[in-house]
């Protein structure tokens, strides 16, 4: 396989994953804003920060308003991480690697772009926002289904999956990075209604409300939430789950190619350093530092993968 193709597959799936996660983030932001009308600007600020697009927003707008924030995250062409921008980039990457994709995967990606492009020609008003976000999630599910159902389990599949899980780990990590303080066991966090809303919002932004209840019951506790998002082995958006998947897919590549670059080791090291421990230890280190270090190391691993498999040179 061409190095460029591996890179195209990796980025195609990263962008698709980002689009889906950003849609979830918007959904939970919308929900928060509805519940806490007074401090809406703060909430949208935290959505922008989590999506990593706050600086770009301030270059264009002075104040944070709901409409502008939603438009910036959803469809602004000046925002390279807006949902519309990343779906365009996913589709461009899919075109680049067209020969590596099955017909089903390609048409799912292409149809996603065609629909999003259509829906996002104009500002999406509040009434249509839920349906638009739903469309994004459904299309992402369609692409994933086509990928799992039609692609050969070879290196093409491995790079696609690695992209997905690197992005997902990064996105879950960012949510924790911005909201860590809500999960800290301080004297004041005794389960006030405000806390509950915050905690549920975190779960909602990774689509894990139901999964959490199944695992921990109806009582939302910050340490359980942190445990669930970081260390749970069955929760498909937890750092643990994503990291395992990256390790797995890198090991398939190693088997297939008969060699492994430094990224194989780096993925094992990432697991051992951050995920082979108890949640109480993580709180001991400091949740915020832990997450920041994790995100930095994840970024390094991603760059090492790009080098090992010659994405660009």
């Amino acid at each position: 396989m061409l190095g460029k193709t591996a890179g195209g597959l990796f980025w195609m799936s990263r962008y698709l994953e980002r689009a889906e996660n950003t849609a979830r983030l918007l959904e939970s932001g919308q929900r928060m804003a509805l519940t806490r009308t007074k401090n809406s600007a703060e909430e949208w600020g935290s959505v922008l920060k989590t999506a990593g697009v706050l600086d770009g927003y301030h270059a264009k707008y002075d104040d944070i308003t709901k409409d502008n924030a939603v438009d910036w995250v959803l469809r602004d062409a000046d925002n390279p991480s807006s949902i519309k921008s990343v779906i365009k980039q996913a589709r461009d990457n899919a075109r680049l690697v067209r020969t590596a994709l099955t017909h089903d995967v390609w048409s799912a990606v292409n149809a996603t772009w065609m629909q999003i492009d259509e829906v996002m020609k104009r500002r999406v008003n509040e009434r249509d926002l839920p349906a638009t976000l739903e469309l994004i999630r459904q299309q992402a599910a369609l692409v994933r289904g086509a990928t799992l159902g039609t692609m050969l389990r070879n290196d093409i599949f491995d790079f696609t999956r690695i992209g997905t899980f690197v992005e997902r780990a990064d996105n879950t990590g960012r949510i924790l990075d911005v909201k860590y303080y809500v999960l800290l066991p301080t004297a004041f966090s005794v389960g006030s209604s405000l806390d509950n809303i915050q905690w549920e919002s975190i779960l909602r932004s990774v689509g894990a409300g139901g999964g959490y209840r199944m695992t921990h019951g109806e009582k939302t506790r910050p340490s359980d939430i942190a445990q669930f998002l970081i260390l749970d082995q069955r929760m498909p958006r937890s750092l643990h789950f994503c990291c395992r998947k990256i390790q797995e897919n890198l090991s398939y590549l190693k088997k297939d190619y008969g060699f492994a670059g430094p990224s194989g080791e780096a993925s094992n090291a990432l697991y051992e350093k951050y995920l082979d421990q108890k949640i109480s230890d993580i709180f001991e280190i400091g949740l915020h530092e832990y997450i920041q270090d994790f995100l930095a190391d994840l970024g390094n691993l991603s760059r090492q993968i790009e080098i090992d498999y010659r994405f660009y040179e």
Partner: protein
Amino acid sequence: MSEYFDEMFNGDGSLRGPYEEIGRWFNAEDVSRLRAKQREAEKVFRLTGITFNVYGKAEAEERLIPFDIVPRVISAREWQRLERGIEQRVRAINAFLHDIYHRQEIVRAGRVPAEMIAGNEAFLPQMLGVSPPGQVYTHIVGVDLVRTGPDEFFVLEDNARTPSGVSYMLENRETMLKMFPELFSATNVRNVSDYPRNLRRSLAACAPACADGEPTVAVLTPGIYNSAYYEHAFLADQMAVELVEGHDLRVVDGRVCMRTTRGYKPIDVLYRRVDDDFLDPLNFNPDSALGVPGILDVYRAGGVTIANAPGTGIADDKAIYSYMPEIVEFYTGEKPLLQNCPTWRCSDPVSLSYVMDNLSELVVKEVHGSGGYGMLIGPTASKKEISAFRDKLKARPANYIAQPTLSLSTVPIFARSGLAPRHVDLRPFVLVSPDGIKITPGGLTRVALKKGSLVVNSSQGGGTKDTWVLED
């Protein structure tokens, strides 16, 4: 009666032989069902991404080439004639290319003037003395034919550089098979779907001597914003070979190699869809980011096969075109089986003055132009356009040729009002290898969708049709 030859209907409204089945089918069909099918076809094309980018338009603009559901039908007898004519012409073109890059016998014999070769922009001195594997220069040719009567076919252009459109030939057939399977059980239409397999075989048969085992073939594309990118990806996919861009390639140890996830791997045959000019920034256009530095040196040393060979453009140059009857005769010793369209070379003062006096009846083309850009169609041009073109001609006469406006045949399209005749041309696709010349029975039929229009180019509002060659 129409002044144009219609391929489906005789003057009295009866069906011509090859169209009997289609005519019967169409009459029995429900018009609204057909309309729904037409829309369905467009949806499939859009979803599959069978689009082309329009140069000079916004980067994101990808257009569909309109597809018409009424097939264009060619009888077995008509096809046999065309096939013989095309084969003769393609053989002559390859002999011509070999000759002008070696001894130039045709110039010595006085059949083609020396300045036509040496002074031609498409002539590549770097190719002098180079013999490509199997003596094949034009691995893929798309000969543009037009028809003016039951037995009158003319060659309008020999696309000997990088002919495009073959993916439409294949996708149009796939679409028709899906939409109207019953039509195919009632007729004996020859198959076109083995083109990609034949292409791969044909390319592999031209591998250089240094190729080890099964030759590695790759398609070289300028990238996703190229107007024919869909086709490049489609062919690579169908042939099961890599689709590469210039930045995927590098010269390593005298071979052209592609950067794979496991390191650099040599390519034996490169089917390039990049123009000569952009192929090698060291040897040609130094600003090109599309090519591979040093690839021409590897090529000259026999380290890679480039298809089509660099420098083949001279054979489809519009000024050289006017010499094709002489070229065919010179190399095959036979009279040309396919006619050339009469051509005035404006570099010649006598021809130029004739052309100047008759602009309103002629088609004037740029010698190096393509895609229907920069041409004048006298009969449909306004006075202003003609006078503007007259100035261009005066300024650079050698840049133009002129041809009479041919009465292109028509085939009906399924228009709003029902069947309506529109002008068509035909581009059959020819594969050349040391194993022989293979012509896919069919080709790309382009159709001018605008009533009365003679311009079939997709960049100018043309559409396509499925092209059927019937079995005997």
